[in-house]
């Protein structure tokens, strides 16, 4: 029993962090129907951000996240202005390739600077023991921060003027423009927040697991699955989707070989797309 609890706990802890990454992806898609293929490299940049703050500046990795988040927001604004704005109304292929070119540029620069060797933030808070299960404290802290970030995002989207603007533009851009909402500024902001979330997720993952500049790709793929689980364009769905994915990854190994987990994940992903493209909760059309 405590064994199953251990599988559950591990899955949930990492799942929340996945959720944050996916939230960024789904927010951008919800607002402007763009699948951001630069998501993975931005996650990787978040990892390197924390790594550099930790090794060069000697900052606590969780404090460094604030800096990483701010830089992530800025980077998102730049990417939006340079690469995304022009292709917003073009066919899907254009925005996919535009963001993919950003992906190539970031990976290219990152590889030149840091090579593709593994890095490790050597930071530990010890191990928490409770109810017969043991959890590395850094993972618990990362999950708590992820929850906090989700909370702040919700407060922002539902309680503040810019947040409400974002939701209005996501709902109907033309109508929002008619109501006098500056849609370009709102779109840029949403893209910035989306990349900021990716950078934060990367920073959290980088604190608990080793990584390379290419590591973001794995989490980008996971984000796709999560986003579809929770419904494209639905940020709260992404958190739940992240938890579900974490559970799948945590619990399936209890019953079969770990190698089957991705088969299961991606088959589920395709089935969901076919049967419930609005996501498990069908929150939004």
């Amino acid at each position: 029993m405590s064994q199953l609890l251990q599988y559950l706990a591990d899955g949930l802890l990492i799942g929340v962090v996945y959720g944050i990454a996916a939230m960024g992806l789904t927010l951008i898609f919800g607002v402007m129907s763009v699948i951001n293929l630069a998501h993975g490299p931005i996650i990787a940049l978040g990892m390197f951000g924390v790594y550099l703050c930790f090794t060069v500046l000697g900052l606590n990795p969780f404090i460094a996240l604030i800096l990483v988040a701010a830089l992530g927001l800025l980077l998102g604004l730049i990417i939006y202005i340079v690469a995304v704005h022009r292709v917003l109304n073009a066919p899907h292929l254009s925005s996919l390739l535009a963001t993919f070119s950003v992906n190539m540029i970031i990976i290219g620069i990152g590889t030149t600077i840091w090579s593709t060797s593994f890095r490790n933030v050597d930071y530990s808070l010890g191990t928490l023991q409770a109810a017969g299960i043991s959890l590395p404290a850094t993972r618990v802290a990362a999950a708590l921060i992820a929850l906090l970030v989700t909370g702040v995002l919700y407060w922002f989207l539902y309680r503040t003027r810019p947040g409400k603007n974002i939701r209005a533009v996501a709902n109907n851009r033309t109508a929002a423009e008619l109501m006098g909402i500056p849609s370009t500024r709102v779109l840029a902001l949403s893209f910035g927040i989306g990349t900021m979330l990716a950078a934060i997720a990367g920073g959290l993952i980088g604190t608990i697991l080793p990584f390379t500049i290419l590591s973001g790709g794995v989490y980008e793929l996971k984000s796709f699955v999560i986003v579809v689980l929770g419904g494209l364009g639905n940020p709260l769905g992404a958190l739940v989707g992240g938890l579900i994915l974490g559970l799948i990854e945590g619990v399936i190994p209890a019953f079969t070989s770990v190698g089957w987990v991705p088969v299961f994940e991606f088959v589920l992903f395709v089935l969901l797309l076919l049967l419930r493209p609005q996501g498990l909760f069908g929150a939004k059309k």
Partner: protein
Amino acid sequence: MKTLRSPGLWLPLLLVAAFAVYPLITGSASTRESMFTVLMSVALASSLNILLGYTGYVSFGHIVFFGLGGYVGFYLIDEQGWHLFPAALLGGVAAGLLALLLGLSILRLRGAYFALATIGINEAMKAFAKQFALFGGPNGMELNFAIYRGYGGANAALWLVFWSLAVLALVVIFVSFKVKKSKFGLGLMAIREDEDAAEVMGVVAPRAKTWAYVLSAIFPGMIGVLFFFKNGVIEPESAFRLHLSIELLVMVMLGGQGTVLGPALGGAAYQSLRRTLLTSPMFRDIQLVVAGVLLLLIVLFIPSGAVGWLRSRWAALRRVLE
């Protein structure tokens, strides 16, 4: 024979033939390898274009057909002792069958949903291949070197593979042209412009889309067999490499989607650019950056690709470039 006189057909055919003949002139194995990569890109991009360019469906995980075909063919050659040609044919059939199956289901999805689903299918196949003991699981399969002897030695085998690929590339171009000029092709392009309107006009969209998907899958399946036969090793990671899939999109985009010449041109241009960057000491480290910036500029400013741009710039070229 009238079609053969159309410059829209013989121009790309001549282009492919030039790539194929080039290694014959130099006689060097290294040129042959470079041209193999170019021809492979040309053929793969042109196949993808049947779905992407004519039908307007963005298949992000198109490489799944290359991988599946490669695996099936490799298995038949290595474990069952088949000759390369029937194995390649069956690799194509396997890829076509998968496309048929998928076509009946995921082609219902549109836009981004379809693109995401194709990624999911590629990843699911990769994960499955890692677990599938018959195909060697995570380690894949290795070709026993003695098999090359049946083809008159490794060198002869490599040339045979090269010529097979060249012929296949020519066939792909021919098929691509024929599709574009047929009623079937017109139906596809109607779907691309407006699927609902096309159905109203009497195009049976689900059937047309599925056949376009199957057609665009068969060739990558066969090419996969040739490629991995040459490689001598097949592994899940190299067979189902999503990155290659995205590179194919870039090639189609570069040359011009929905044209016959475009993907061939794009494939060749992309590979030669990549090689030049990789071998130049100055750009070696930043080759990805340069390629990324170029792609971004094309997407932002010339979204119809080189051929599309030429066609719209000079009306006279429209009769020549397809």
